[in-house]
């Protein structure tokens, strides 16, 4: 796949369709991939990579890249196309400056899955059928691919590319995903358990803002948490309240806009399952106002920007669940 993509990129560079390519660049180790812009075929030959570690969603970079001269080629995995579409809908990307190439994705590896299995000192990884052979300083390990996949990939919502100029490989389908299972599990807890669960998670937050800065929906020119005039700006949570507030407000601001790309949870250095907040909103929206997938199209009104006179009342929250 990497070879086909590199060829495609070079072809489009050479025939002048695009003048830059947004893709992934090799790192020091096997897994430390960095998003990068390639300006010529030499750079692509030298450093372009696409493999099981190319997890970054490149669509957010297009806010910046599409405003530059010329056209940029971007490689988009199925889930990235949703983010791309959503950004288009919000007029954040200049569409005619982008050449979007859809690429297939079999799920990406979450390094923490390996670390959790006490695999450390990784110096090389090989793929063998459905397994990975991991070479470490302290010996080799074989691990099933499935056990190394990121949560968001195990619960992949769609293999379909909702937008592209060109597609490499065949398009997939929207999947019947189990992504709300964990949300349901939390909903089934008692309020005390839920509170303890989220306190346990949020208390680890170091407010590094990685979740916010990587999020394609969090593309504000100036975030309310950075804006002293907003009244809620803060740099670090000085009290547990501020930990809660940051995550509640952030989730609320992306509600109805979050495509559930899962980047927030991927980048969290403290492994806080932030996607469970976004998925809660998605699940509620689906239940209260009808199924809605952000990024699926560019026309429909976001659920919070529309209403129905027959909408449920907020009191439904008291009736639901019944856990006291």
């Amino acid at each position, binding site marked *: 796949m990497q070879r086909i993509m590199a060829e495609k990129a070079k072809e489009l560079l050479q025939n002048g369709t695009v003048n830059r390519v947004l893709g992934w660049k090799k790192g020091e180790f096997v897994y430390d991939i960095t998003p990068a812009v390639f300006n010529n075929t030499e750079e692509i030959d030298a450093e372009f990579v696409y493999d099981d570690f190319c997890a970054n969603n490149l669509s957010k970079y297009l806010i910046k890249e599409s*405003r530059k001269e010329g056209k940029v080629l971007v490689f988009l995995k199925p889930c990235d196309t949703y983010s791309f579409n959503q950004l288009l809908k*919000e*007029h*954040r990307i200049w569409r005619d400056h982008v050449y979007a190439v859809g690429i297939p994705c079999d799920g990406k590896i979450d390094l923490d899955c390996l670390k959790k299995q006490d695999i450390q000192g990784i110096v090389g990884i090989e793929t063998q059928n459905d397994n990975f052979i991991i070479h470490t300083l302290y010996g080799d390990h074989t691990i099933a691919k499935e056990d190394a996949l990121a949560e968001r990939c195990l619960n992949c919502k769609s293999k379909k590319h909702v937008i592209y100029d060109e597609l490499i490989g065949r398009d997939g389908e929207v999947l019947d995903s189990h992504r709300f299972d964990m949300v349901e599990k939390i909903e089934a807890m008692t309020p005390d358990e839920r509170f303890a669960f989220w306190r346990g998670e949020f208390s680890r937050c170091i407010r590094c803002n990685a979740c916010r800065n990587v999020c394609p929906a969090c*593309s*504000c*020119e*100036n*975030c*309310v948490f950075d*804006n002293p*005039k*907003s*009244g809620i700006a803060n740099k670090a949570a000085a009290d547990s309240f501020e930990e809660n507030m940051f995550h509640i407000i952030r989730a609320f*601001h*992306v509600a109805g*806009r979050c495509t559930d790309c899962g980047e927030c949870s991927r980048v969290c250095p403290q492994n806080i399952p932030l996607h469970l907040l976004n998925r809660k909103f998605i699940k509620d929206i689906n239940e209260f106002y009808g199924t809605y997938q952000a990024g699926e199209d560019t026309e429909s*009104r*976001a659920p*919070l*920007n*529309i209403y129905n006179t027959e909408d449920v009342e907020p009191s439904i929250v008291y009736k639901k669940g019944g856990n006291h």
Partner: protein
Amino acid sequence: MQKIGVFVCWCGSNIAATVDVSAVSEALSHEPGVVYATNYQYMCSEAGQNTIKDAIKKYGLTGIVICSCSPRMHEATFRKTAAAAGLNPYMVEIANIREQCSWIHKDMATATEKAIILGKAAIAKVHLNAPLTASQSPVVKRALVIGGGIAGIQTALDIADAGFEVDIVEKSPTIGGKMSQLDKTFPTLDCAACILTPKMVDVAQHEKIKIYSYSEVEAVKGFVGNFEVTIRKKARYVNENVCTGCGLCTEKCPQKNVPNEFNLGMDKRRAIYIPFAQAVPKVATIDANYCMKLKTGKCGLCEKICTAGAIDYSQKDQLIEQKYGAIVVATGFNPIKLDNFEEYSYSQSPDVVTSLEFERITNAAGPTSGQLLRPSDGKHPHTIVFVQCVGSRDTSGCGKPYCSKICCMYTAKHAMLTREKYPDTDVYVFYIDVRTPGKNFDEFYRRAAEEYGVHYIKGMVGKVAPKADGKLMVQASDLISNEQLHIDADMVVLATAIEPDKSARPLATMLTASMDTNDFFTEAHPKLRPVESPTAGIFLSGTCQGPKDIPETVSQAGAAAAKVIGLLAKDTLTANPCVAHSDEMMCNGCSSCEKVCPYGAITYVDKEFRMPDRTVAIRRVAVVNEAVCQGCGACTVACPSGAMDLKGFSNSQIMAEVDAICK
């Protein structure tokens, strides 16, 4: 730092009996920024107001807090007081210590404590108040009425009579609308033409009214007081100013086979035509779809015979730009298409007609010259079945969920007139409910049943089938006698549901006026502002807002005119200064705010900015039209970046109040 004055009102004993007013003014005098605090028996009295004015001048106050009755009562009073003393009226905040404190609490300590907190909240807010100036925008003293039916005619006449210029845009060649097609009107049975045509003439002759017939609205820009409208005047290939309306061409035109829409296709007209004798303007129009000259270049007969020389085959559509202060929508209705109701055999038998077609059949100027004759064979029908609620009150998806409101009455009219003119005719009316709320309406319906012997049957027609002998088999239920009826009818008349004209939806988009799911225009308030659209400067007249009969339409038309006159009488519009505004440097251009704005007050522009990193960038940013914004604040919450804020109720002001209350 503001210099704040606090004025605590006793309201006689209304406040002072439960709230220790001097304790309140004493406590508030220690708040940061407060330089003066006092209390007085009646702050709203002249003496009280003078106290305020004097203090503003003496202490150089930059903001004042009045602890008194509800702001809904005296906010305007105290703002005027402040303005009179040279303080911006929006630097006034009211702490409601009467309705929301002294009147609901009995214990003095509790009430005083709460009054102090409410006062502190008001002080905290006024600290963040900024002087606001209401924006002024000039009003173009001209109104546009879209639609030339009875609603549009009445609105235009009323506005014009008040001395303002009015333009009517009518898409067909003549004004008059549906009412011109009607025969008699319920419940008085006066002839529609007799009461309508004089009004049409009035319109034509009114010096303040200009009719753009055969024209449509192409584009609308601007806002209340200052709309810029593009009107497309369609080519009619006849010079309006020259045509005398003699009608000679309409008799000589060789193309005789054009369905006559005025008679709903029941007879034919020529390719050049005047819709009906009393048309206004009474000028001919060439139907380009049928004219041989325009289609093939051959013929040209009308040009030859026209003594006035009015024919102009080279005419093109004309675009007219005009400015208006107000726009009235009067786009009216149409009966629905009956494609979904095969059971009535409308498309199979010419003897199954809609009520509007029946109007034409009974109209003296109609295809049968007023003779009640069957369309199929021209014979006099002896049994007529009227079916009510055809497509109305239908939630199955085939028709319309609403009641079309006028059908019960016009059906009673049709039944009554038929029986009156042709007593040998059996008339059946199948109904679900007969709805007759209106002056003399029920009496009218009962007269049809009691005096004219119309058979009213509670039940619905399930099937109409043409029979070989030319009759129509009507199968229906009679719910009262619990039997199924089979009637051999000569004619079936369907009381077809009405729906808004198809042009309404694109027009609503142009006007940013909201519509309901049935494409009726929504009112600004269903009870209190029934003739205004939520979009400022757009008014509603007639059935574009919902089904109505003629008297209701006319009264709504008058009401809309009154609203327009009220608007146009002003030289400038003073907007509420508590409007949304967007911090352009923070705006993402995402359109969330635009989507939730009920007034269409937000638009987007691409603008060049010097960014903090010293680069220059073109960014899409929201712009609020202050003349249109009503200050609800929906956009401020929809905006994720917090770029959108509301003057007078800003995020920081409300949070300051929250802080003060929770201290």
